[in-house]
């Protein structure tokens, strides 16, 4: 409003020196130049660092869409010389994309849900519903974060291979259950908070529970809500931003986890496991799907350039759902920020 009025004034008396001095005294100039410099600094920094992150992704996209006979040409460094769908078609067939994608996505979603719920319960217990020894147990949560999972590889494998609860299963079926080879072992670990980075989620959520004002929960309890009702209606919505963060992290890490997947439920239907395997055997992978490709493509597998391009296409297909999901979740993040800004507290 005021700037507009000033601008109109400016055009009317352009050469009024007094007016000019009044409007552009040294405080105004200093303030404006500082603001300009900080904006410039922010954009330069963010754009530079953003480039560092995006360059490998761009390289993969470029490799994928470049026609295979144009690979490695000097004049297609930034923009491919010729574009073709061949690499991505081959990758699609190599990964058996639709069915593998469904399998991986569903598993990751189930694991993420189980992990988030388990962590939300445990973290609330640690943050608010303390009992004798919960301080010590929380020390163990930190402990589970620090210990690399590889350490217990052998012992975990053996215990899930011969899974039993105090001999009950053996008494019923005659032998301990073998959970290796199906997703049940992974689900079990996730639901009990041992899965991929399980301890971290408890830690994160506990910190954000503790930042909620305790008086709200007490008020809910005084007004007649039980502990569970207070938890689901008051506490969980209060930490929804952290809850979303945890769910997203859990989903992404379970989707791209190869350690537990290869140890407990190894299958080529798991996209990331298959990607790892295929990248080591690109030549044979391309040879394998030669018959399935449409006839109008020239298939070759000897050149490392082409192997690399198809490997890039595979990687792109694997990370594509994550990126798409991420774009949507990103909107929720921004919304969350704006809502809390409006509410003000």
């Amino acid at each position: 409003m005021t700037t507009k009025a000033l601008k109109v004034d400016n055009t009317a008396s352009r050469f009024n020196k007094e007016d000019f001095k009044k409007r552009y005294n040294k405080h105004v100039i200093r303030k404006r130049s500082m603001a300009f410099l900080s904006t410039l600094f922010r954009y330069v920094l963010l754009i530079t660092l953003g480039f560092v992150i995006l360059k490998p992704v761009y390289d993969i996209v470029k490799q994928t869409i470049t026609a295979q006979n144009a690979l490695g040409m000097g004049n297609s460094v930034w923009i491919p010389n010729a574009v073709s769908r061949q690499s991505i078609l081959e990758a699609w067939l190599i990964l058996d994309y639709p069915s593998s994608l469904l399998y991986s996505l569903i598993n990751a979603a189930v694991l993420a849900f189980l992990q988030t719920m388990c962590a939300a319960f445990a973290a609330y217990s640690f943050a608010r519903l303390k009992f004798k020894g919960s301080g010590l147990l929380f020390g163990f949560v930190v402990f589970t974060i620090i210990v690399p999972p590889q350490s217990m590889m052998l012992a975990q494998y053996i215990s899930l291979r011969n899974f039993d609860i105090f001999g009950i299963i053996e008494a019923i079926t005659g032998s301990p259950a073998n959970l290796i080879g199906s997703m049940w072992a992974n689900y079990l670990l996730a639901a009990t908070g041992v899965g991929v980075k399980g301890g971290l989620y408890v830690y994160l959520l506990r910190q954000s529970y503790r930042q909620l004002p305790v008086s709200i929960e007490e008020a809910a309890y005084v007004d007649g809500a039980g502990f569970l009702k207070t938890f689901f209606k008051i506490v969980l919505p209060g930490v929804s931003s952290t809850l979303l963060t945890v769910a997203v992290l859990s989903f992404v890490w379970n989707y791209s986890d190869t350690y537990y997947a290869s140890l407990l439920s190894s299958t080529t239907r798991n996209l990331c496991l298959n990607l790892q395997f295929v990248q080591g055997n690109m030549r044979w992978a391309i040879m394998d799907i030669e018959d399935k490709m449409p006839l109008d493509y020239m298939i070759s597998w000897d050149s490392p350039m082409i192997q690399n391009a198809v490997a890039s296409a595979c990687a792109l297909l694997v990370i594509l759902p994550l990126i798409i999901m991420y774009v949507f979740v990103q909107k929720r993040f921004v919304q969350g920020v704006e809502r809390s800004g409006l509410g003000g507290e």
Partner: protein
Amino acid sequence: MSKNKTNNTASSQAAMPAKKKRGYAALSYTKKKGLWGFILLCPWLIGFLGFFLIPLVQTFYYALFDMRLANNGFSFDFVGIENFRYILTVDPDYNQELIAALQDMALNVPIQIFVALFLAIMLNAKFPGRGFFRTIFFIPIILSTGILTIEVTGLETFNLAAEETEGVMSAAFFTETLSNSGIPSELLSMIQSFVSSIFEVITTAGVQILIFLSGLQGISPSLYEVAKLEGCTQFECFCKITLPMISPMILVCLVYSLSDTFAKAEISELIDTTMFTSAQYGRGAAMSAVYFAMSVGITLLLTLIVSKVVFYYDN
């Protein structure tokens, strides 16, 4: 205190029906709280005991044995601390890897936390294109899992050669220019190592940025409004509001960064190969035991120190 409360509820109940409360209803508030705390913790507790603590203890137990694959399972020969003596005094690689892991930690963790906090504050401010930049800076969370490191067997040598010529040329060019301009060589090598690690730092700082951002979002804007009305400068706002309010997240980031660097250290590979490739299960178990003792000790020590200065809004 708790007795008092039970009396109160009992007397208020006595007015309505002439029945005494029993079981759950008779418990005091604190006791109910504790009970629900235990119930909610149960899933985690089962997992912790069954799939974490017992396997971990077994690992330490294995470290005392010379384990070999036998017809049905493993054969155990008790060797006492021989495995520990071997890895610490005879094994040529283990000590070096241990020190390398420590160096990595000392160098990377502070830089990671600083860069993450800095970027989170930048991304939290309001400016055009903020959503776009946030989307970009979280991509490393996906990247850091290693999907994008493409390793095609035939191409490795080819890529390596190309990278080397390119890398040496550019590095040599910059080093020459800078050393000609009179900068001391120690400082120069420090700058060089920092610049070359930018990519690594940024790609591993994704989670920390997320943690800090969620923390920053939790700070009530009214605090800043009050501070501005009272005449605080931007810098004072940062020191007196942002830092204390974000300090719990600094603790989280510290623990996360430490565990991340420790888990990714090359020593894990050494343990892996010792255990599963060379089938020296006992020795591998001893290696992991020593490594854990070190990493857990350092992390707990640092957590203790930092938690002294952490500020909680409610306490």
